[in-house]
């Protein structure tokens, strides 16, 4: 080693000299090709892994997507067939309303996706330390968020647009242009979302949380206003011509010619019409292509702007964000945590401490509670709107059961996404738990109680709200509440039990744990469980209330339908739900506990 020196170095670039010929910064094109090649290699490797290790998940995703697509197509086909007889302007209003809402949603969802991709991902931390152009990093991460947006939009929008084309008997060019139209449209909100994200992070880092709070408040206020306006306008005159006209006039605000949603709606309607008054079919295609060109050119222009912006502010924003000061949390125990810890016997104290710990983690994880609030909040808004319509008793009861199923399905997504990985994540901290005087069973039971109690309170509340709005009689309300309680217990039992039975102790990401084999199995079993619970209770109740179990004289039919439609049948259904709920709760928990006791981390 040479002798140390503290002589300052020269500050001119001459000390470095030009890089050797074998090492020159890649051109823009070479860099783009390289990053695109990387994306392709990663996608191929992920696909290969999925085909070999996650066939169940892949099959499930394809089947459920096909089912979802087919159901939506059927729904839209019937809707358009009904509307086809009405004035064509209605379609334009509906399309504009739908696409403009989607435009706004895509801007915000892409901003959030880009935030995590550009600023929080390990890949971004790697790329920013390499001689990569910031705009190249932006476009590389943009591909991810664009793919997610396109996938959702195509799955949701394509059945609607295909159904529209079929009902309108559109020419083949309409179907050919569908995909380019959708892709060209998504580029615009996706790019705007990316730009919004970079500008927010770079320019208002200190105000970011305030900006977020304002955006959430404004969105919530908007949703409440929309819900309120719908409630206020639709009391006794639901589905009347006046109500219809009022609704259409409210939607007219979305028909703005400078909105990309209008370009998309107009281009598609033009294309589906097959002809214009003056020029015939080819004229319609040309007109449609003009709208497509308008979308594509604006999308490309925005891409150029986004690249220009990324070159200037991406690195600055990354640095600003890295310098963010995390708020200090002085030890303050909330009254609820203190109450929960101290209440009950000394023997149960470790269990309660574990629950308080999970509760604290939940409160501090924005991803968890924000999704919880958004989904259950939207459901609450929907339930509040139910009373706009009037139903007969049997119909209302059925809607009540469907609402129960929806509540169960939403809860199952939470138990699979957030509760199932809890044991796996705890496994990574096994050394802490192993050293504590806590029995392993208590860890599993604490997760179950946390999930079960945390799910029961909002779910039973929502089901009660739905039943009250529907004016359902109290015995049926009681049946709904029993079913809801069983759903909460069973779904928690499945998620926690399978989480302990099939833990993934190596994985740190909860989303990856949830999307593995165990998580997929939990989701499938949860869905089957919900269907079984709802059917077991709903069928006899419906038969009983509709009087289908009795003949014209009011005497019970001698067959199975007669028995199922009797009061005994209803109680038998409820009893079956309780038995099924108990089994779904205890069996996975038993298997999970047995495996977890012997687990070696």
């Amino acid at each position, binding site marked *: *080693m040479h002798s*140390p020196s503290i002589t300052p170095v020269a500050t001119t670039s001459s000390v*470095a000299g030009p890089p050797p010929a074998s090492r020159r910064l890649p051109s823009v094109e070479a860099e783009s090709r390289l990053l695109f090649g990387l994306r392709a290699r990663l996608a191929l490797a992920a696909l290969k892994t999925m085909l070999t290790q996650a066939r169940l998940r892949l099959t499930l995703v394809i089947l459920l997507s096909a089912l979802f697509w087919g159901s939506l197509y059927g729904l839209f086909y019937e809707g358009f067939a009904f509307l086809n007889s009405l004035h064509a302007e209605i379609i334009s209003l509906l399309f504009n309303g739908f696409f403009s809402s989607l435009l706004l949603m895509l801007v915000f969802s892409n901003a959030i996706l880009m935030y995590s991709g550009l600023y929080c991902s390990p890949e971004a931390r790697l790329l920013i330390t390499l*001689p990569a152009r910031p705009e190249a990093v932006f476009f590389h991460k943009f591909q991810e968020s664009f793919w997610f947006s396109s996938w959702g939009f195509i799955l949701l929008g394509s059945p609607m647009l295909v159904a529209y084309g079929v009902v309108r008997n559109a020419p083949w060019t309409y179907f050919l242009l569908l995909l380019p139209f959708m892709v060209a449209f998504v580029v615009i909100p996706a790019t705007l979302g990316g730009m919004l994200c970079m500008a927010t992070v770079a320019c208002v880092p200190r105000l970011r949380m305030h900006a977020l709070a304002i955006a959430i408040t404004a969105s919530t206020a908007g949703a409440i206003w929309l819900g309120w306006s719908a409630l206020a306008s639709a009391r006794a005159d639901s589905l009347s011509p006046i109500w219809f006209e009022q609704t259409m006039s409210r939607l007219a605000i979305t028909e703005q010619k400078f909105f990309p949603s209008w370009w998309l709606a107009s281009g598609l309607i033009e294309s589906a019409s097959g002809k214009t008054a003056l020029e015939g079919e080819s004229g319609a295609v040309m007109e449609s292509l003009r709208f497509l060109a308008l979308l594509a050119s604006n999308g490309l222009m925005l891409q150029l702007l986004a690249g220009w912006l990324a070159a200037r502010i991406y*690195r600055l924003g990354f640095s600003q964000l890295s*310098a963010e000061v995390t708020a200090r949390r002085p030890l303050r125990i909330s009254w609820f945590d203190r109450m929960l810890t101290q209440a009950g016997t000394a023997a149960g104290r470790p269990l309660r401490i574990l629950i308080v710990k999970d509760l604290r983690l939940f409160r501090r994880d924005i991803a968890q509670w924000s999704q919880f609030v958004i989904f259950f909040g939207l459901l609450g808004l929907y339930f509040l709107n139910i009373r706009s319509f009037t139903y007969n008793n049997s119909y209302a009861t059925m809607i009540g059961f469907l609402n129960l199923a929806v509540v169960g399905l939403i809860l199952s997504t939470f138990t699979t996404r957030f509760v199932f990985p809890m044991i796996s994540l705890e496994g990574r901290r096994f050394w802490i738990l192993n050293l504590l005087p806590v029995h392993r069973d208590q860890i599993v039971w604490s997760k179950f109680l946390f999930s079960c109690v945390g799910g029961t309170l909002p779910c039973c509340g929502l089901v009660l709200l739905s039943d009250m709005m529907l004016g359902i009689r109290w015995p049926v309300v009681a049946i709904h509440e029993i079913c809801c309680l069983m759903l909460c217990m069973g779904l928690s039992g499945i998620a926690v039990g399978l989480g302990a039975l099939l833990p993934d102790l190596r994985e740190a990401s909860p989303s990856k744990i949830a999307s593995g084999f165990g998580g997929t199995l939990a989701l499938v079993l949860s869905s089957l469980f919900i269907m079984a619970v709802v059917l077991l209770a709903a069928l006899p109740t419906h038969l009983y209330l509709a009087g289908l179990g009795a003949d014209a004289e009011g005497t019970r039919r001698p067959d199975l339908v007669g028995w199922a439609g009797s009061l005994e049948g209803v109680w038998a259904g409820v009893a079956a739900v309780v038995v099924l709920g108990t089994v779904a709760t205890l069996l996975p928990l038993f298997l999970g506990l047995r495996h977890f006791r012997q687990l070696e981390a």
Partner: protein
Amino acid sequence: MIEFAEVTRTYGPKTAVSGLSLAIPKGELFALLGPNGAGKTTTIKMLVGLLRPSQGAVRVCGFDMVKDPRNAHLHIGYVPDDPNLYDKLTGREFLWFIAEMFGMQQQHAMQRIGEVIDNFELADFADDLTESYSLGMKQRLVFASSLLHDPDVLVLDEPMVGLDPRSVRIVKDLLRKLTHQGMTVFMSTHTLAMAEEMADRVGIMVRGQLRFLGTVEELRQQMDKQATNLEQLYLELTAPQAMATGPILSPARPDAP
């Protein structure tokens, strides 16, 4: 090769690095030491472009890290404390990706990839997906990738974490060889024995300020403790009472830019 010119970095009201002036010449192995929260990681982040200084400038081979980050990066190899790899790429694919990002020509890249695979003994697992690697294997791969493009400056953040004794020996030998060949190494570490063994100079940061800059021998002289090792000197210099009562040494000699 590396120059910090009056660099200050604040996190809100807190100053993580305060008025850091430091110049590290070609071929020197410099070890930055200090207790947790002293500002070492912030310094490294500014050096590799993850953070921008609130004041002052960081230059690598004369290229300003804020004004010309791409050219600065071209001269840097960086080994973070937490290796970031693509789970679904093999080690060899990762090396190719890095080589191409640095604009290496294919023939040269192939030759260098072969060399680093041999040097870091990666051959057994170079064609496996990196998701199956242990921490030590990942660290060796990141080391290999950081040296692929023959950087003028190698920045190491806790380089020995996760490495087994054999890999530690490989890295030490390699660092000696590379500094002899003219590479500048900037290393942040808590492994004082390694710093004492390897470093030409050490810098000791306390609460964002460079409390000492020089050789271990100079530190001994200033503290008047000839027969003491670096660990003992470091512990005395960074003891809470020493930190509270101000510098016990004459201030570190800043390397004026």
